[in-house]
């Protein structure tokens, strides 16, 4: 019996992956970014969450290679005197956490709704109309609305506590119809196939047919939109933070770092905005390019022999 690892080594997926230099590069960059984000407490030179280590006298120091730079702060410091590199690593961790969390929530809601409305005709109309209503609200509008209410209800201190789960829920709720529509469309195509009929002939229950037989067959488009949606969610979070409705400055994400730095950009402290900006763009670009590869890989029509 071949082990899973051996199977993986011989698989077409790995072969096609290794032959695509863009995919390999992107994967490598993403791996480094994700690793450094989650290893931030270990590898970051400073702890930006620990206010006792921050010295306001170090505020707005330029990167180490610039004049006036300090070797302690490789990429300079922000307006509070926090080390930019460490803050960015922590910020990226928050961004990725929110991105992945929001996509998990979206995917869960979207898949459940999509399956139900694709397979059970009676539910189709009502569920899809709810999705349409949801889609007719802009993500940001919903987010600003809920964000403002929660901020008012919990106060600024309380808001800091609930910010991460709250943003996950906001972005998750705003974008689930994307999944629901994709899943519904593939379910409608799958349910006419004979193996579904065969499953009914065997006497399996509706729930079992939906979850066990149809769902795995609809997962490839879900996988493709998931990669794009992670990038989207990170961007949404950044945009919300930029508008001041996302992560608080005490626990900055990449987006709130960019905003925080924006106030100082014209006074010459460009590094506070530019570095998190570059990191955000790289992160999203890499995820999107990997998403492209996944899409091409999962689309048999694009196989080039």
């Amino acid at each position, binding site marked *: 019996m071949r082990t899973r690892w051996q199977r993986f080594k011989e698989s077409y997926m790995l072969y096609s992956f290794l032959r695509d230099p863009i995919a390999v590069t992107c994967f490598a960059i993403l791996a480094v970014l994700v690793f450094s984000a989650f290893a931030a407490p270990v590898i970051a030179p400073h702890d930006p969450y620990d206010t006792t280590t921050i010295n306001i006298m170090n505020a707005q120091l330029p990167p180490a290679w610039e004049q006036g730079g300090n070797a302690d702060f490789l990429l300079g410091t922000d307006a509070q005197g926090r080390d930019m590199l460490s803050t960015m690593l922590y910020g990226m961790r928050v961004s990725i956490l929110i991105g992945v969390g929001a996509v998990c929530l979206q995917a869960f809601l979207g898949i459940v709704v999509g399956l139900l409305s694709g397979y059970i005709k009676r539910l189709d109309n009502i569920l899809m109309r709810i999705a349409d209503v949801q889609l007719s609200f802009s993500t940001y509008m919903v987010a600003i609305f809920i964000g403002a209410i929660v901020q008012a209800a919990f106060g600024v201190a309380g808001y800091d506590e609930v910010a991460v789960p709250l943003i996950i829920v906001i972005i998750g709720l705003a974008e689930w119809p994307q999944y629901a529509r994709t899943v519904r469309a593939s379910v409608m195509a799958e349910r006419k196939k004979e193996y579904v009929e065969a499953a009914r*002939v065997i*006497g*399996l229950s509706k729930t079992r047919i939906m979850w066990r037989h149809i769902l*795995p067959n609809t997962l490839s488009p879900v996988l493709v939109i998931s990669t794009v949606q992670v990038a989207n969610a990170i961007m949404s979070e950044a945009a919300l933070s930029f508008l001041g409705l996302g992560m608080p400055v005490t626990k900055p994400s990449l987006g709130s770092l960019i905003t925080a730095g924006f106030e100082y950009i014209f006074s010459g402290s460009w590094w506070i905005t530019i570095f998190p900006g570059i990191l955000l763009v790289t992160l999203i670009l890499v995820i999107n390019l990997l998403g492209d590869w996944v899409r091409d890989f999962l689309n048999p029509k694009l196989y080039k022999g």
Partner: protein
Amino acid sequence: MEKLIDIENLRVDFELRSGRVRAVRDVSLVINKGERLGIVGESGAGKSVLGFSLINLISKPGRITGGQILFDGRDLTKLNDDQMRHIRGNDISMIFQDPMMTLNPVLTIGTQMKETILAHMKVSAKEAEAICLDKLRKVYIPSPEKRLKQYPHEFSGGMRQRIVIAISLLTSPKLIIADEPTTALDVTIQAEIMDLLLELCEKENMGLILITHDLAVVSEVTQRIAVLYAGKVIELGAADQLITNPQHPYTKGLIQALPQMAGGERRLNQIPGMMPSLLNMPKGCPFEPRCTICSERCKTEIPKLHELECGTQVACFKCEGGE
């Protein structure tokens, strides 16, 4: 002989925009325990609809609108969904045309087989696996332990159909409905699958309904044959009797249309015309417009099944003798 399933005046209608289409028209058939019945007819004669109506899985907008199906003393047309689900796969199972399509491509054979067992029987996963292995051996799948862990695309067409058969055997059903089980396979595999089906039915004393348009195949496997035309049984009789001594002009035509090995390079006979549209049925015998021996009576009156001396039942005025 004990009756296994008793179909009485079964009627299946499809409500379409263009009108009501009656796909199965007052069909009455009896299958005894362990008996093999063949249902033949050309495309659109209602063979598959008849098969699906037995397990109440006619696709919408089709519906059983009359008659009854007695199975084990219960009328299948009156059961609710849960009761019906219990019958499906448990007492009656079905084998489809294309084994490429009937297996779920993303689940292993083992998963799909165990699922069937667990849906109908109270056994542990281990016992379920033992049953799977046993049935796979019955359909002559070599090294079944290894095969259980494989996906459908790792099997050839014939193998897949054997696995489909194994799945239908899992719960030891009393009746198997095989809807053109060999059309998607090549000829040598066809014979193999048919032999297998025949062997299994005899060994396990299962009833079989074999739906096909291939007269040669039915005559070898089944004991009785029903010829379906435009949703009606027009001839019903013992297989050898029906093949060697067909009564109805349509059956005669079908048999003459078979290629003969010894026939030389003669053109095959064909039955002129087409089956009437189900939306626009002739008033009398449905075969009348194509019939070469029809009379005035055939145009106005629908003939009923009538038993002849040789034991064959036939729905034709000409065959009722004399007239």
